[in-house]
């Protein structure tokens, strides 16, 4: 699957009330596809987006919190799967875009590429529902149902490596981005 096709399918089911945390390469695609002040873009580095998502899910149980992780990012914070499984927030939806590479850092392969089973890890960590998608048509048909589940929900998206991107990191880490999110969340 192409990442942008998956994100476009997902965006069709994301509402104005949802919080979305896209990571690295996915973030640059996502903010073009679905620009919105409730995109949470400043989660530092080293795979912490899923942890930020857990904080948001605990802090705002009235909202769906959707994290769109990378496989390399998730490997840096694998323990968060166990933490999320234990905390069991019903409003947390954890997608991982699995392309087997550190795409934002030169395209080098992740450890365990083609061996690691992200869906299996999530299932063993206590996620309530786990999906594994490798066919866009199936994903498009099921994404609505996925987002209607009681969480924590995990979905592994098998994607191809993305194309070249213009990566202006101020679009993710600039203070204006965080202020826009903070203001939007307070008003929402």
């Amino acid at each position: 699957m192409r990442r942008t096709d998956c994100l476009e399918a997902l965006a069709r089911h994301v509402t104005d009330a949802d919080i979305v945390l896209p990571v690295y390469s996915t973030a640059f695609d996502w903010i073009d596809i679905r620009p919105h002040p409730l995109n949470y873009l400043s989660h530092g580095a080293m795979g912490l987006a899923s942890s930020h998502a857990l904080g948001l899910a605990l802090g705002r149980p009235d909202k769906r919190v959707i994290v769109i992780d990378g496989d390399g990012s998730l490997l840096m914070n694998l323990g968060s799967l166990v933490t999320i499984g234990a905390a069991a927030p019903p409003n947390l939806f954890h997608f991982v875009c699995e392309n087997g590479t550190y795409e934002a850092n030169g395209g080098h392969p992740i450890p365990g590429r083609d061996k690691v089973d992200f869906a299996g890890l999530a299932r063993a960590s206590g996620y309530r529902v786990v999906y594994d998608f490798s066919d866009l048509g199936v994903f498009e048909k099921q994404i609505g149902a996925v987002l209607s589940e009681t969480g924590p929900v995990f979905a592994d998206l098998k994607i191809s490596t993305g194309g070249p991107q213009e990566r202006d990191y101020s679009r993710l880490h600039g203070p204006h981005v965080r202020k826009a999110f903070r203001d939007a969340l307070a008003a929402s």
Partner: protein
Amino acid sequence: MPSAGTAIREAFLDGASIIREIKASRIEFVVSVPDITTSEGLLRPLAQGTDPRLIRVCKEDEGVGICAGLSYCRRRALLLIQQTGLFDSINAIRGVAVEYGLPICMMVGLLEKEPGVPPRQSKRYGVRIVEPVLEAMGVTYHEIEAEADVEKIAPAIDTAYAEMRPVVLLIGRRPS
């Protein structure tokens, strides 16, 4: 920036007093990896209650992210860890707490610190370097060594949230 602890040779630290201060600070979540200094006096009693809610994490930098997310929701949180976990989380604290300007409040047990000895004068390298590292990062800290220091906790947390910056509360002896 630093706030020295009260040096009382026979000093003790009451865990119940610290927990009262945590609650007085309107902390709703305690996020923790167990730390031997605070295990019995703080973490165990906190685990027996429901307010604040305890979130157990696998690694301390997860906690920085969780507390960050909660801060955007205007929910107060405290990260209860050991200085080894603080060191392991330096990049998260650097990026998320300091550079983003978020009120990440950390209560840090000082493993192997000698009671009554200021951290900088500890014989333990892993204790001696804590305050210089925090100063290099520009992170405010307070020593909580004796009962008289406990009253620093709530104002320190209030200030962190008011000024949107991290704070570290260094627990220098095992609370009873």
